[in-house]
């Protein structure tokens, strides 16, 4: 087993050599900075224009109660029918909506944003990095 581990470490190091060259010289190497996906907005951009967005919180009730973006209304896909009427009523026409969930790994904001876009009340964005990115950006 020890021999296999030593061999595995050697192979790991061996692969590091061409990978390093690839990271530096490959014409199609990835840019290591995080790009915005289609329909996403960065917390920094939102903070530069405060008050110009309609906020939708796609997190569970407990997390919302612990803290949320001022003025944000809760809306999740699980509770869509109960919560969507109040959201649609509060959403000022042509005001961009920003939907967020807990972090970069959560999927709820994407689903809620997709369904909100179907109403054509204004642009709908997903906050990149969610609540985590929002609180981090505010500390800066």
């Amino acid at each position: 087993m020890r021999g296999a581990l030593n061999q595995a470490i050697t192979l790991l190091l061996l692969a590091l050599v061409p990978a390093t060259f690839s990271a530096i010289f490959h014409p199609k190497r990835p840019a290591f900075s995080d790009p915005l996906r289609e329909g996403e907005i960065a917390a920094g951009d939102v903070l530069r224009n405060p008050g110009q967005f309609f906020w939708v919180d796609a997190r569970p009730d407990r997390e919302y109660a612990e803290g949320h973006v001022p003025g944000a209304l809760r809306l999740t896909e699980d509770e869509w029918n109960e919560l969507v009427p109040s959201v649609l009523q509060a959403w000022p026409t042509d005001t961009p909506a920003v939907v967020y969930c807990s972090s970069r790994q959560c999927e709820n904001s994407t689903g809620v944003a997709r369904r909100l876009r179907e109403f054509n009340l204004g642009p709908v964005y997903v906050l990149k990095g969610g609540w985590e990115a929002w609180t981090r950006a505010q500390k800066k």
Partner: protein
Amino acid sequence: MDARTEKVIAMILRLIVGGVFIYAGALKALDPAQFAVDVDNFRLLPYPLACAMGVYLPWLEIVCGAALAFGIFRPGATLLLAGILIGFLIALVTAWARGLDIHCGCFGHSSGKSHLWASVLLDVALLGAVCLISKTSSRTEGRRQLRNR
């Protein structure tokens, strides 16, 4: 099954599995930026780490695939390949469970239209083959040591 047949089957398996990894790694190494996007789509890693994986993983597959096919550092290569396959399996199953509408990127752009469940099946088949290779290799090694005594 006699020792000779077992050895031949193990060698064929090694060539097939090693070849699959060399092919898959080479396709991804040709376009590391695309593979980094594929890794990022699983939303399991921070983006810079997904980029690092996008660059490193294809070369690790090529190196391990070549080691397996040529019979160099075989135990180490099977250990790493099993680890890579288990990692892929976890990523695929969690993506499936989270309902992510993505493709696995296992064979670079050519896997664009494959379903996640098909990738899971291929992953499990490769993992089975790697385990079999490891088992037969250790049995052959045991026989060789017995003969040498």
